[in-house]
């Protein structure tokens, strides 16, 4: 693995039964890079990033995350998951725990931090996502945008090297998208490695170092934002951009 790379995916193939969902994926992510993955639904983009923290298994190829090769070895999976955080489309907060307890769970049980320290850490990140005053409420008492910001704070509590975002704004009411994107833009400025599956092209233009376009289980095109939007090479990407940017 090269010094500067934090994720290396080589010749990755994955099948759901007979369905070939990821085809010969090759992708390297450098430390601190911000990658946006886009593409039509069913193109395999969510599956790809879910392979990175092993929520999905794959059959062929290799994924190396921070010098750890993902195999069936449970210790390696655990080690990778300590470095990689994920924000989900449907937030997936734990409804039976208060916001604060949602955040302290991982520090206290995985990092064995004392409750007091874990709570201080949690409050720090809740403050950063502008939601500290809701700490003692339960997830279902918050709006979607607030829940997603809590979910981002929860994943920050691990101080992860890499953050994966799986369509973080797709399940939100339109007026709440901005508050979540603002938080993500702030994060992007901090130099943490981020891989975001999203359709928010404004966000991609603003912060992405590279944009990856997937269709049909393969990477069709990858480029820096400027060229990605102005000079798409493939017809498939041209069509996709037309469809999502035409209105």
């Amino acid at each position, binding site marked *: 693995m090269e010094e500067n790379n934090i994720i290396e995916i080589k010749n990755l193939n994955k099948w759901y039964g007979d369905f070939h969902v990821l085809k010969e994926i090759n992708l390297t992510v450098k430390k601190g890079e911000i990658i946006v993955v886009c593409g039509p639904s069913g193109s395999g983009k969510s599956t790809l990033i879910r392979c990175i*923290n*092993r*929520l999905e298994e794959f059959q062929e190829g290799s994924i190396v995350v921070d010098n750890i090769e993902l195999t069936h070895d449970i210790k390696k999976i*655990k080690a990778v*998951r*300590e470095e*990689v*955080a*994920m924000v*989900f489309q*449907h937030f*997936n*907060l*734990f*409804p*039976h*725990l208060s916001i604060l307890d949602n955040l302290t*769970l*991982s520090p206290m*049980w*995985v990092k064995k931090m004392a409750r007091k320290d874990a709570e201080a850490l949690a409050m720090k990140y809740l403050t950063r996502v502008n939601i500290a005053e809701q700490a003692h409420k*339960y*997830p*279902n*008492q918050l709006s979607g945008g607030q829940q997603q910001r809590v979910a981002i704070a*929860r*994943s920050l509590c*691990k101080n992860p090297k890499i953050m994966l975002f799986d369509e973080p704004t797709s399940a939100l009411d339109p007026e709440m998208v901005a508050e979540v994107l603002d938080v993500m833009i702030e994060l992007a400025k901090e130099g943490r490695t981020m891989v975001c599956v999203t359709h928010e092209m404004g966000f991609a233009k603003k912060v992405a170092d590279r944009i990856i376009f997937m269709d049909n289980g393969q990477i069709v095109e990858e480029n820096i934002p400027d060229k990605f939007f102005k000079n798409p090479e493939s017809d498939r990407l041209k069509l996709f951009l037309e469809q999502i940017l035409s209105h």
Partner: protein
Amino acid sequence: MAVYDMKPTKSAPVNSKGAWHWVRENLFSSPLNILLTFLGVGLLYLIIPPFLQWAYFDATFIGSTREDCAVNGGACWVFINYKLDMFMYGFYPEGERWRLNLGLGLFVLLLLALRYLKSTLMKFAFFNLFLVAAAILTIGGTLGLEMVPTDRWGGLMLTIVVAATGIIVAFPIGVFLALGRASDLPIIRSICVTYIEFIRGVPLITILFMSSIILPLFFPEGITFDKLLRALIGIAMFEAAYIAENIRGGLQAIPKGQYEAADAIGLSYWQKMGLVILPQALKVAIPNLVGVSIALFQDTTLVLIIGLFDLLGMVRLSAADSYWLGFETEGYVFVTFIFWFFCYSMSRFSQRLEKRFNTNLQ
């Protein structure tokens, strides 16, 4: 720029139209409804006044012999009163019954502790402390307490011992069976499925017979172990299968995203299950778990067939007392009331638990 004023909020119209309106709406709204109302009232008229007449107005409450009851012709509660100690304690030695009463007192203390203590760890500690104390008090044999052999146990006390031990022992087994059945490991899964499906295919009465008659055949001669203990093992094994199925139902109600989020923040399997999945699954399963508990409380009466005298058994035995012949009805009404009291309390308790664990606030 368009400007708009906030319209004032009005309070909702008052919705009370009086009792007569309610009666007309709900009891006499259509010919069929009127007919059903009269039928219902008629039925209640046929049942309640005669029962009250028998159970209260014509009943005898004070006295100590059956002759005292001969005058009024109604229920003879003297019989219950006279035999009450036996119904409650069975053949437990009279001089030692304070131990059971003390146990009951400790139980009340435990309820208060569970209600007012904040820390879950402390609650758990108190609960276990109570179990140990209750076991020592009931069985004896240590701390200068005389040992009371289980063939002296009986009545309501035995009913509670059987039901409580059954549930407390079966619950953790049930949790593990449910997790095993939902597991990815094929051998664990098939063992759990086989166990659950086997037990659920056999009536409790068969299991009681097996544990009391067939099980001893497998032990070498001379080794016997307690009849009550054998029954308790049988009941716990039986209940565990049902509890496992109810918890499995709860597990299935938990969305996949919860498992993924727990994985993603780095929890191990047991942390994930213990901290994230089971608390939610058990909450979903509360009504069914209490249902199982209520059913078990009633099923304890089956221990009669292997020669243990629970509350119902004691009442039957007492009604067969040659001096008190002919008072079965009073006995059964009494048993009915006790069982209803316990089961209804459990049902109310379940509703309170559900409310307490409801974090689905909007």
